[in-house]
C-alpha cells in the first residue's frame, strides 16, 4: 500500500515523464506573425563571360594497355624499346611477341603498323604526353623519329603478334621505335605493365627455345619498355570541343556579381547544348570540375573533387550538370570563383583499360552555355542591431 506521500511523488514523476513523450502537429499558420523572411524564389539565367577550349594530355606511359590505331581525329601510336638483348647473336632467330587482348574480351580492329626508329632517348614516364608548350608540340624526349628509315611493318590481326628481330638493328631496338598505324581502327595490346599480356622475347636455335628474362644480370636479358602516345590532331571545326581522356575540355567562367551575398542557392544547373561527333559507347558521361586558380589553359589547376556530373544518351542534344554546392561556395567566397571545366568523364567501366578507352570520344558545344540559378534569401535576424 502506497502512502499518500509516495503516491504524490510517484504521480508527479509519472506525469512528468509521460508528458516528455508529447509531440506536436504542425500546419500552415502564423508565418505573417514573424514579420520577416520573404517568400520569394529568385531565378537567374547567367551566361559565361569567358569560354575557352583546351586540351589536357594525360600520362599513358605506364598504362596497362597499349592503344594503337586511328580514326578521323585521333592517331594512337605505340613506342617500344628493348633494353639488353645482347645475346641475340647466340640464337638462330629472336622474336618479339606482342599480345592483343583476346577478341572475345575486347573487340579490336586489325591494324597494320609501320615501324620507324625514334631519334631521341625516351622512357616510359618521360613520354607521358605532358606537352612542352602547346597542344600540338611533341615532348622533346618523346617521339621524334626518322620517317625515312622503315624498320618493319607489323599487322595485328591475331591475339599474338610475332616480330622477328634483326641482330643488326640492336642499337635501334635499344634507342626505341615508334609504331604508326596505317589504317583506321584501334587495337589493344598488353603493355609491360600488364603481367598477363605483357610483350616478351623468345630466342630460337636448332632444337631449343629460350625466353629472355627482364631481370638484369640474366644470361639472356632483354627488357621491353613501351608506351602509347597520341598524334596531335587538328580541331575538326572552330566549335567548342568537348572531349574525353586525352583531349578537349571546355573552360567557362560565370560572373556571379549580380547575385546578393546572403543567399541560399537552391539550384544551379549548367545547361549545355551538345552534339556528339563519335563515341565508343551509347552513353556519355560528363563531369565538371572547378578551378582552384586562374585559368591557364591546359595547365589549369582543378579541384580534385568532382563538382557535378551528368550522363546522357549519345543521341541527346543537351546536358545539364547540377552543382549547387559550388555555386553556393562561390557566392560565399567570391574570390574563389575561378570558373569551371567541363569534359567527358575520365571514368571507365572496364578497369583493364583505365581511362584510355575514351580517348576518342568527342563532341562539341553548340550555342551558349547557361547557368540557371535559383535562390532564396537568408532569413533576417529577429533582433537587428546597428551593424546590419
Amino acid at each position, binding site marked *: 500500500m502506497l502512502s499518500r506521500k509516495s503516491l504524490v511523488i510517484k504521480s508527479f514523476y509519472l*506525469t512528468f515523464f509521460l508528458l516528455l513523450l*508529447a509531440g*506536436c502537429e*504542425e500546419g500552415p499558420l502564423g508565418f505573417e506573425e514573424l514579420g520577416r523572411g520573404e*517568400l520569394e524564389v529568385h531565378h537567374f539565367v547567367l551566361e559565361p563571360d569567358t569560354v575557352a577550349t583546351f586540351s589536357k594530355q594525360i600520362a599513358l606511359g605506364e598504362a596497362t594497355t597499349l592503344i594503337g590505331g586511328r580514326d578521323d581525329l585521333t592517331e594512337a601510336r605505340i613506342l617500344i624499346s628493348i633494353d639488353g638483348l645482347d645475346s641475340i647473336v647466340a640464337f638462330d632467330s629472336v622474336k618479339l611477341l606482342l599480345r592483343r587482348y583476346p577478341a572475345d574480351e575486347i573487340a579490336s580492329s586489325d591494324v597494320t603498323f609501320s615501324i620507324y626508329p625514334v631519334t631521341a632517348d625516351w622512357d616510359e614516364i618521360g613520354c607521358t604526353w605532358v606537352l612542352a608548350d602547346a597542344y600540338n608540340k611533341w615532348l622533346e624526349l618523346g617521339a621524334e623519329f626518322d620517317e625515312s628509315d622503315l624498320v618493319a611493318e607489323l599487322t595485328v590481326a591475331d591475339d599474338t603478334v610475332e616480330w622477328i628481330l634483326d641482330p643488326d638493328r640492336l642499337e635501334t631496338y635499344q634507342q626505341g621505335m615508334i609504331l604508326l598505324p596505317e589504317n583506321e581502327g584501334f587495337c589493344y595490346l598488353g603493355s609491360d605493365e600488364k603481367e598477363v599480356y605483357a610483350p616478351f622475347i623468345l630466342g630460337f636455335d636448332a632444337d631449343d627455345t629460350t625466353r629472355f628474362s627482364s631481370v638484369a644480370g640474366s644470361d639472356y636479358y632483354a627488357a621491353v619498355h613501351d608506351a602509347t602516345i597520341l598524334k596531335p590532331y587538328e580541331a575538326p571545326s572552330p566549335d567548342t570541343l568537348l572531349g574525353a581522356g586525352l583531349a578537349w575540355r571546355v573552360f567557362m567562367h560565370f560572373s556571379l556579381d549580380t547575385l546578393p551575398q546572403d543567399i541560399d542557392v537552391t539550384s544551379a544547373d549548367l545547361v549545355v547544348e551538345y552534339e556528339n561527333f563519335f563515341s565508343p559507347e551509347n552513353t556519355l558521361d560528363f563531369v565538371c570540375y572547378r578551378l582552384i586558380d586562374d585559368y591557364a589553359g591546359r595547365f589549369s589547376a582543378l579541384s580534385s573533387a568532382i563538382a557535378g556530373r551528368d550522363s546522357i544518351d549519345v543521341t541527346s542534344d543537351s546536358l545539364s550538370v547540377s552543382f549547387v554546392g559550388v555555386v553556393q561556395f562561390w557566392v560565399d567566397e567570391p574570390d574563389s570563383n575561378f570558373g569551371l571545366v567541363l569534359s567527358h568523364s575520365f571514368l571507365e567501366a572496364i578497369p583493364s583499360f583505365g581511362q584510355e578507352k575514351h580517348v576518342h570520344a568527342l563532341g562539341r558545344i553548340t550555342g551558349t552555355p547557361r547557368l540557371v540559378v*535559383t535562390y532564396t534569401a537568408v532569413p533576417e535576424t529577429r533582433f537587428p542591431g546597428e551593424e546590419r
Partner: protein
Amino acid sequence: MRRLLIFLLPLGSVLLAYSIFNTHGLGGYTTPAEFLKIPSRTQTSLEVHFTSEYVYATDGQAGQNAFLVRPERFRFYVPLPWRFGLGAQMAQRFNLDFYVESDSARSADYTLIRRVKGRGGIEGLRLSLDKGFYDIAYLGVGYERLFGGAWERWDSEIVELGEMTVDSLLYYFGGNGVWGMAGFKLGPLQLRGFYGYPLDLGVTTEVQTSRDTTVVDSASYTPPAELGGILAYSANKLELGLAYIQQKASDHTSLSFITGHLVEANAAYKFKPFILTGKAGWKSWYVESADGSPIRDTYLGIGTRIPIESYGYGILELTGGLREAGAISEYHVELRAGLEFRELWKKRERMWGG
C-alpha cells in the same frame, strides 16, 4: 536519491512552451513568483514546478496542435537571523518557443513553403535579500541575471525543385536587472509593492547554414520594467490574493514594446487534508501582433495542494484559457505539477543541530 532527482530535474531546460505570439518582442513573458503571490517569510522552502501545456492555435482556417512540457520555476528561500531572508529563483522570463508555417507562395514559377521553428528563451536567475521590521513590514532588494539562448530553424522548401534549404539563427542573451519590494502585514491583510528595473539586454545573433556560422549582429534592448502590487487576505481556512503587474516599456527599438498588464486573482481554501486552489487572470501582452492588434490572454485555473508528511506539499493545477490577437486564437490548457519542500528542511536542521 530523491533530493538528487529534484535538483536535476530543473536542468532539463530543453523542454518547451509554445505560442505563435512568442514570435514578437522578447517572447512570451513569465512573471516572477514573488510578483504574483506572497510566500511565507518564516519558513525555509524549496519549490520545483513543471508545466505541461496543450495549445490549439487557429486562424479560422488552418490549425496547429502542440503538446509540450517545460520546467516553470525553481525557487529557494531561507530565513536568516535578525529577520533577514535570502531567496534564489530560476525561471524562464521570456519564452521563444514557436512554430509557424507559410502558405505555399508562388514566384518565378516556383512554389516556396517556409517553416520556422523557434526554441529557447531568456532565463532569469534571481537573488534576493529582504529584511523584516517588527513582523509588520519588510523591505527587499534583488538582482537578476538574464541569460540563455534561442534557436530558430528555417526550412525553405521549393516544391518544383524538390530542394530544401535549412538555415539557423542563433541568439545569445545576456543582461541584468534589479528590483525592490516593500510589504506590510496588518492582521489578515498583506500588501506588497514592487518595481523591477531592467538594465540593457545584449543579444548576439549568429546565422548558421550548412556552410558556416557567422556572427551577423549584436544588439541591445531594454526589457520592459515591472511594477505592481499584491493584496492578500488570509483567514483560518481561506486565502485570497489579487496581483497586478504592469510592464512598462521604455525601449523604442524595432521590437515595438507597448505597456503590458496582468491581473490575477488567487484563492485557496483548506479542505482537509487538501487545500483547494483557484485562480483567474487576464493578461495584455507587452507587444502587439503583426497586424497591430493587442495580444490578450484570459485564463482560469483550479488546483490542489496535497500535504506530504515530513516534506511539504504536492501541487497539481489545471489552467485553461484563450490567447488571441487579430485572426489568431490559441486555446491553451496547462497542467502544472510541483513540489514544495518545507518540513524536510526543518528535519535536516534538527539533524545538523545536534
